[in-house]
């Protein structure tokens, strides 16, 4: 079946601009996660959705970052006033019901470059 998909695959923007990154989870998965992977690092947690609500946003680095999942399926990560330090690969993952032992299935990521 279809896996997690993310668009765009690459995004180049200028410092100060606004960007939106989209994630389509596996159909039927109620849990959705965003992670950020900087060069030479492992993925770092940003936010977790159970259904439509953000159950844990403790990983968002500051208030320039915001994410939504209005219908409990597709999610959008929004970054305002982008900075060069925001350059990274943004990964989305989903799992069936959000139980902590469940496998999180990852998408291919969006590579964001802020010039």
């Amino acid at each position, binding site marked *: 079946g279809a896996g997690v998909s993310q668009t765009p695959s690459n995004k180049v923007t200028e410092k100060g601009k606004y960007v939106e990154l989209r994630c389509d989870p596996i159909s039927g998965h109620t849990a959705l996660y965003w992670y950020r992977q900087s060069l*030479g690092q*492992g993925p770092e947690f940003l936010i977790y959705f159970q259904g439509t609500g953000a159950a*844990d946003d403790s990983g968002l680095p500051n208030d320039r970052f915001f994410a939504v999942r209005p219908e409990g399926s597709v999610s959008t990560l929004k970054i305002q006033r982008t900075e060069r330090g925001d350059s990274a690969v943004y990964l989305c993952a989903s799992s069936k019901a959000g139980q*902590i032992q469940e*496998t999180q299935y*990852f*998408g*291919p990521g969006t590579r964001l470059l802020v010039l």
Partner: protein
Amino acid sequence: AQSVSQHNHHVILSEAASLELGCNYSYGGTVNLFWYVQYPGQHLQLLLKYFSGDPLVKGIKGFEAEFIKSKFSFNLRKPSVQWSDTAEYFCAVNSLGAGSYQLTFGKGTKLSVIP
């Protein structure tokens, strides 16, 4: 806060050599442990996971890992590597409690297998 250490940044092996990749975590409570792999040009995918029971866990493609609670370790092993095992390997952990859905990843170990 929990953390994960992967001892080797880059490992180079010849085909048929045995593999052991180290992973140590810092958290004193109940943990779930995961190994993910990222093949060149592909997304992260699960190799194996441990959450209870037999501490020796078998995964896909002949990989296994052993959970040693007293050493806070979850090392990944394969008796005979193939060129197709060339990839980056990430150890990850989550645990019961606040933020339990978050996966905390190590920095990854890049494995290069020489034919």
